[in-house]
């Protein structure tokens, strides 16, 4: 791309304090009038150095730390981490614990998708959708609070199984909640498909062709909305997923609307799985004794977090402290995609396009992705403002 004269464009910074992104991230948009030329996503605000901290704590303490990598998918991180460590230890997790892990994982997916649908409405200036979906989300929070004692950060997982059991007394009440949620999700599906202004703002925006989704290694609902069938629960089943039957939801239109639609359908699949867990959960104890010292070895575990494929690589050199823990979160993979999608759209769509990949900065916390065809950019927002954009109205 020819070297652009920077002063012809305005560079608009979004964030780090910005109502569109609930978390601190900065997005530098080089804008030509209302059209975005290229985007530079800077996420280092959220980097806390968790991997280095994990090397100074014992395996057991790390469960507490790794759960706090991200608020919305905390159970995913601990399940993935515990599965990897259990693989190194070579211990067999009891069947009932596997079912409870999958159950909490699916509940977390439902609340994460409902949260996402709500904030999408908020990004589009439609707070009614936010209020409706978050009101229904409270039902899930109540259910999680009843099982695990907390609305977020459930601390359910430990090496060898789970720490709290599902009491059969609650099952009728849970079933009732699931019926209510299924009916509400169907209502949202109807709203998403019918509401005129929602369609106008999401149809055909940030189209991600299948080929590009594969080439840029997109993950999760973002890539499934572009007809790429990658789902760790189906291809690389873990916990209780081999015994639960569900379909991997894909859609072919690949735009922001399709991602919303895929997420809503995934909620229905999750409800279906939760019902199966409630019907078929086997008896038996929920935890097996695990040694404090982890034998020498390494393991890598894939997990389908609400936002996509999550990888935990754990390596132990035979002590109580890990040698290396590598966390690759789903949003980490989608940042390259977000930058590609941001080209050529107008400012009004930027929040919805970035939010469509459901970024979780605290998960990714790690990367700055920029348009690979361009050199470095010094952020000169104020000077660039002086020699203002295309209208050529002269300096302010």
């Amino acid at each position, binding site marked *: 791309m020819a070297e652009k004269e920077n002063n012809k464009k305005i560079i608009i910074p979004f964030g780090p304090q910005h109502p569109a992104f609930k978390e601190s991230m900065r997005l530098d948009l080089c804008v030509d009038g209302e059209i975005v030329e290229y985007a530079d996503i800077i996420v280092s605000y959220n980097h806390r150095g968790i991997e280095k901290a994990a090397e100074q704590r014992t395996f057991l303490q790390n469960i507490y730390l790794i759960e706090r990598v991200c608020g919305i998918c905390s159970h995913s991180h601990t399940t993935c981490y515990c599965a990897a460590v259990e693989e190194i230890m070579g211990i067999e997790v009891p069947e009932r614990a596997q079912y409870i892990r999958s159950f909490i994982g699916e509940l977390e997916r439902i609340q994460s998708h409902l949260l996402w649908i709500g904030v999408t409405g908020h*990004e*589009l200036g439609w707070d009614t959708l936010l209020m409706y979906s978050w*009101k229904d989300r409270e039902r899930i929070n109540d259910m999680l609070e009843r099982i695990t004692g907390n609305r977020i950060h459930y601390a359910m997982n430990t090496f060898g199984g789970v720490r709290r059991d599902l009491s059969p007394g609650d099952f009728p009440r849970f079933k009732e909640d699931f019926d209510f949620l299924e009916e509400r999700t169907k209502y949202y599906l109807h709203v998403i498909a019918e509401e005129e*202004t929602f369609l106008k703002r999401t149809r055909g925006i940030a189209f991600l062709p299948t080929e590009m989704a594969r080439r840029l290694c997109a993950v999760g609902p973002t890539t499934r909305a572009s007809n790429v069938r990658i789902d760790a629960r189906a291809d690389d089943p873990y916990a209780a997923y081999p015994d639960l039957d569900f379909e991997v939801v894909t859609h072919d239109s690949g735009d922001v609307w399709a991602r919303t639609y895929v997420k809503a359908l995934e909620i229905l699949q999750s409800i279906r799985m939760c019902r199966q867990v409630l019907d078929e959960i086997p008896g038996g104890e929920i935890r097996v004794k695990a040694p404090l010292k982890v034998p020498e070895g390494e393991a890598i575990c894939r997990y389908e977090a609400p936002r996509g494929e999550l990888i935990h690589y754990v390596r132990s050199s035979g002590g109580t402290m890990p040698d290396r823990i590598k966390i690759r979160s789903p949003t980490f993979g989608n940042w390259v995609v977000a930058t590609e999608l941001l080209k050529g759209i107008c*400012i*009004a769509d930027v929040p919805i396009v970035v939010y469509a990949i459901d970024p979780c900065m605290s998960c990714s916390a790690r990367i700055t992705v920029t348009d690979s065809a361009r050199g470095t950019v010094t952020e000169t927002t104020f000077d660039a403002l002086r020699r*203002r954009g295309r209208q050529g109205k002269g300096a302010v």
Partner: protein
Amino acid sequence: MTGILEAAAYLLIFPGFLFLLCFGLFCEWVDRRVYARLQNRVGPPIFQPFADLIKLMGKEDIIPTNVDRLLFQYMPLIAFASVMTSVVFIPVWGTSAILPLPGDLVVTLYLFSILPLSFFVIGWSSASLYPLVGGFRAATMLFGYEVPFILTCLAPGMLAGSWSVTGIMDYLAVHPASMLVLLPGFAVALVALEAKLERPPFDIPHAETEIVGGVFTEYSGKKLAVMRMTEDIGLVVGASLLAAIFLGGFVLGDQTFVWSGMDWTPFFNFLLYLAKALVIVFLLAMIRTLFARLRIDQMLDFSWKYLAMGGLFQLFIVMVYAGFIGR
């Protein structure tokens, strides 16, 4: 002497400053409450807008350094004044306003379009990035809703054969049936008013999630209080204007309520006016709840395709009605 006192009372007390201030705050409360109730929320208490106003008055008034000082500070007052003066021509009790002029409908429309212009000037003068983009958007939106709004507001004038709001109300009072003819225009005017006051789904210049505070990002303290007040009174004046020229028929003739020697009709007409205005505020709050924010190009597209056509269609009906069926 008494004339001046009476005029001062009209201007400052009753349909003027004080009344508009209170009715504006009340309308903002109705708007926020309806918006909250439609979202299963409880919504703010009745004194909330008043508390917000007083609190903002007490806050520190920051003027950023490289700001166009004159415009930045006094534009809110200009907008406030322009919105306030247009109430003089709108009848509040009965069918006659305080100062009925032959062409005051046009004057009101002109005064009422200074408000959106002030958004642009504020955005322009507060030399930071987000207000500037907000200002551009306010200006581009101007071309969207201004024409349909004026088209639909002039239709009653053509029907009544007079450009004064009082004249229109007199005509509608005599022929209440002709209000049905004006129904499509009323719908289009409602949507155009929603756009003129920059309320969702047309709040593109204030788009919170895209350009932070939008046009008012740099404002704080008194200036912000005055601008919020201007928006509230704009809502009241807009609602009363539409109530007068589209729903003018709901008015009681004089002397209908004489009770113990006193003529109570103006009082009941005033209550009717309040009811009409609140119905319109309710409808505007409904629009605000039900739709997502449109992009600037979609908004222009929508307003030229549907609103402008609606306005022309309304004019056509009025001509047919006035021409054939006769006044």
